[in-house]
């Protein structure tokens, strides 16, 4: 089990569920996020639940020039990391981003551009450590563009391809890169959605992410059945796909 963990986007429900599992295993954790009060609340929770040490660092993902400094400080806290989870992201209002190029590009900036910047920095640091695992939250939405959420999906597609390349590059360097593809997860981000049988709890997804960080490989759909759902969706011919409402 990894003992030194970096969690970026630590106030998301999935990220906190992951942090709790590491806390129960007495790991040392650095939480990075944008909202100080929420980060401190999560840090207290992790300390009580067994974490050996928890530090908090403030960072707005979109503030690219600040990344290097915050990440360098985080790496200094415990002398490196055994695992990192990149879990920030926003679910843009699809209708609004269809009307406004500004909104569409802003969502892409948060979900793709800043993640690529961060992964670049993390990859180099993990490469020089010569060990560890980096997991990044992507989405099945990135597997094929759909009318209902292609702005979000386009950014996740970029993240998926970037992570794939990174995995390829670091494979021989002792560093595992994991692309996490969660299906429908019942979190505050999806509070307004109608829930059905395909929906999973964040704790269920966190279990898969922790297992992946510990000894997993490649692209991890969670829960597992999304791998097969997306395999089918990718196979649908475009002429048929354009008529579907998914």
């Amino acid at each position, binding site marked *: 089990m990894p003992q030194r963990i970096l969690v970026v986007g630590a106030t998301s429900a999935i990220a906190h569920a992951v942090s709790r599992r590491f806390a129960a295993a007495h790991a040392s954790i650095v939480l990075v996020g944008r909202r100080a009060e*929420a980060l401190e*609340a*999560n840090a*207290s*929770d992790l300390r*009580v*639940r067994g974490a050996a040490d928890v530090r908090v660092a403030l960072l707005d993902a979109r503030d690219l020039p600040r990344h290097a400094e915050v990440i360098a400080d985080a790496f200094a806290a415990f002398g490196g990391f055994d695992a990192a989870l990149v879990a920030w992201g926003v679910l843009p209002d699809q209708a609004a981003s269809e009307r406004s190029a500004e909104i569409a590009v802003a969502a892409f900036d948060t979900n793709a551009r800043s993640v690529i910047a961060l992964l670049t920095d993390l990859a180099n640091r993990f490469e020089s450590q010569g060990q560890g695992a980096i997991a990044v939250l992507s989405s099945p939405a990135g597997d094929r563009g759909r009318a209902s959420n292609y702005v979000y999906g386009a950014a996740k597609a970029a993240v998926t391809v970037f992570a794939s390349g990174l995995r390829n590059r670091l494979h021989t360097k002792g560093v595992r890169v994991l692309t996490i593809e969660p299906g429908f997860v019942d979190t*505050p981000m999806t509070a307004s959605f109608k829930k059905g049988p395909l929906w999973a709890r964040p704790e269920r997804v966190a279990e898969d992410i922790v297992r992946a960080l510990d000894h997993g490989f490649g692209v991890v759909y969670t829960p597992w059945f999304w791998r097969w759902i997306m395999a089918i969706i990718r196979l649908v011919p475009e002429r048929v796909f354009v008529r579907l409402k998914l």
Partner: protein
Amino acid sequence: MRPVSSWGRLSRDLHEVVDLDEAGSAGKRIAESRQPGLPFGNGRSYGDVCLNAGGILWATRGLDRFLAFDDRTGVIECEAGVTLKEVIDVALPRGWFPAVTPGTQWVTVGGAVANDVHGKNHHRNGCFGDHVESLTLLRTDGSRIVCGPGLEPEWFRATVGGLGLTGLVLAARFRLRPVAGPWIECERHAFQSLEQFFALSDASIQEWEYTVSWIDCGSLREGEPRGIFFAGNHVGSGEEAPTRPSRRVPFTPPMPLVNRLSMRAFNALYYRVNRAGPERSTKHYQPFFYPLDTLLEWNRLYGPRGFYQFQCVVPTANQEAAVRELLQAIAGSGQGSFLSVLKTFGARPAAGMLSFPMAGTTLALDFPNLGPTTLALLQRLCAIVDAADGRVYPAKDAFMPAGLLLHGYPEWQDFSHFRDPGISSQMSRRLVGH
């Protein structure tokens, strides 16, 4: 809008559920919602105390962060949606356990405060609220009140046992009790009459922290009730944790599996097995405190119409006569209960204005909902409780008449000054109109 039931599954009305997930934003979320609303924890209360049909429920389960735990003093602080199971999981490995626990660990801390729950050690440790040092109460106007026994004590007395009507409990700080491990040393004795039950209770309260009795509902027609008296104490060593995984009742059967026949058979069997078993044993805490928690959604066994829980307490002076009359009324009705529980309470004055326990004896039973015949029996039982100056437990109630509330809870009028005008429940509307 989605259907929400309480644990008794008597209704499935639509509610608009607002999932609170961060203490920092809870005030804003409440201010933005339609009012009146009602705080909702993990839905383990039985009747209508946690329901607000057609209205808003502010669900606190997402407020599940621990804030602090000092394992030298055993004082723990957490948000209201943390369950007692989570408290135990964190505290027990460090030598601490809740000072008071009800019969399920799936309740939230907020729910334990709002219903001022009690357990098998009431005669020793009182109620949950007796161990609370402070509460953070969020009012629907956005203000916050921090209260405790020594700080805004009137707000504290109103909120402990206050049925969620004084505001939403955001967080609580409370004392745990030290334990040497997860084991309980137990003793059990069969009894064949109420007199024997009271003699066993009186003889045990000095030596045993936990006492509770099960009575055989099938035996009531033959005059004196028979049953099994259980007692327990925390001890330092015993058997390993049970490895049996929890099971789930997979669907709701079209009719209650709990009927007269199965009830009589179960009760007779349970009595025989327990009478024949060893008098002394050491158990893991889970089967001792939470025997039903490993059967998830056991409430489905009562079928689509659900069931009523009846729990009352009658004061010491009237206890023997009143309990006998209650048991006779149940026997006469031909209805019975799977798990009928009898326990004597201690004399400790409760922390809340509306706290349920008082010095005397409590009786708890569950009845499958057979419609008017069940309601008629419950009304009869309420009349007996009223005449004996007792009271009914709101956390389990769906039927008590308003008169019994006001007679049983003389502080209700004082309490009503502390109610939050933005909060109302099905129970509060049923009993006092708003």
